[in-house]
């Protein structure tokens, strides 16, 4: 039986923290990518996370999202022509509590089509502003390219020790 769901690489943040978490030289030997993350940051209050591909910071990213906070009316938001794409926010209030997030990127090696991404981001923190985010993102550069670099950053502060991310490759045959 083929092994079609393989761990490509894991990034774990050390004691000094990290401003970004990145995967580079992503092999083109799979069909889809899955990124699973457990993240916490060092600043106070909710902080936005952003994603770029291949170091591209042109205004070619867009997204639509739905979010819920456990009270009030769920919200929805969108962005167009951004220099990175929004992944939802992180909560850092409750000690020793990490946010869970998963990205799914089909057909990441295509050199002819834009890349659509599905993101689920949840942060339960036993306080009033825990949130869940479901996000549809698009990276549509002027010249389409296979994704070989993936970089995640947080708007303020750093990812703290023990934050980790594992990138998986999925083969369809």
């Amino acid at each position, binding site marked *: 039986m083929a092994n*079609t769901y393989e761990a490509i690489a894991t990034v774990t943040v050390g004691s000094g923290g990290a401003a970004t978490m990145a995967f580079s030289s992503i092999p083109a030997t799979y069909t*889809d990518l899955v990124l699973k993350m457990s993240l916490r940051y060092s600043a106070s209050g909710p902080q936005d996370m952003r994603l770029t591909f291949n170091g591209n910071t042109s205004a070619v990213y867009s997204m639509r999202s739905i979010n819920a906070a456990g009270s009030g009316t769920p919200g*929805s938001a969108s962005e167009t022509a951004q220099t990175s794409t929004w992944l939802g926010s992180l909560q850092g209030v409750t000690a020793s509590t990490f946010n869970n997030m998963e990205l799914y990127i089909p057909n990441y090696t295509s050199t002819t089509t834009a890349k659509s*991404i599905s993101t689920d981001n949840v942060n339960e923190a036993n306080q009033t502003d825990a949130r869940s985010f479901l996000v549809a993102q*698009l990276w549509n550069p002027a010249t389409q390219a296979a994704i070989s670099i993936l970089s995640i950053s947080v708007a303020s502060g750093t990812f703290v020790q023990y934050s980790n991310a594992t990138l998986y490759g999925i083969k369809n045959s």
Partner: protein
Amino acid sequence: MPKTYTPIATTTLGSNSTSVSFTSISGNYTDLVLVASPTTLANGEQFTMTFNSDTSSNYSATYLTGNGTTATSHRRNTQSNIIVDYYGAVDTTVKTVYIFNIQNYSNTTTNKTILITSRTGYAAESNVALYRSTSAITTITLAGATFTTGSTFTLYGIKAA
């Protein structure tokens, strides 16, 4: 990682098609995952899912949708198919992301629940559907839109052990 995420079949369209089916699905797995990344002939086309060629009123679904402005929820009961997303829809040029998780698809004692992740240029949705049948699922059909060349559909089998 156990070797349980097995590709059963994959379809990459070489020409436009109004339906895509996976047939003769074996009962060897616990769950099924279907990953679809389609484009369609016209903007805003929605498509449906049915099982075992059953178009009786055995389907229902609940939708959680964010279209970029507002968040809403909807229901469809006693339907002849599952409309995959309520507000989201496929695009002519941008490949969208659909992930279907079909739990316990081969059991013959309970109805089947399907979790649908739909992420398109029109909306982000997470939906749940029910197929009220105790038959094992052996055929999956996506239809109702004209899927265009290059659209991809892959069915994976997941084993619990």
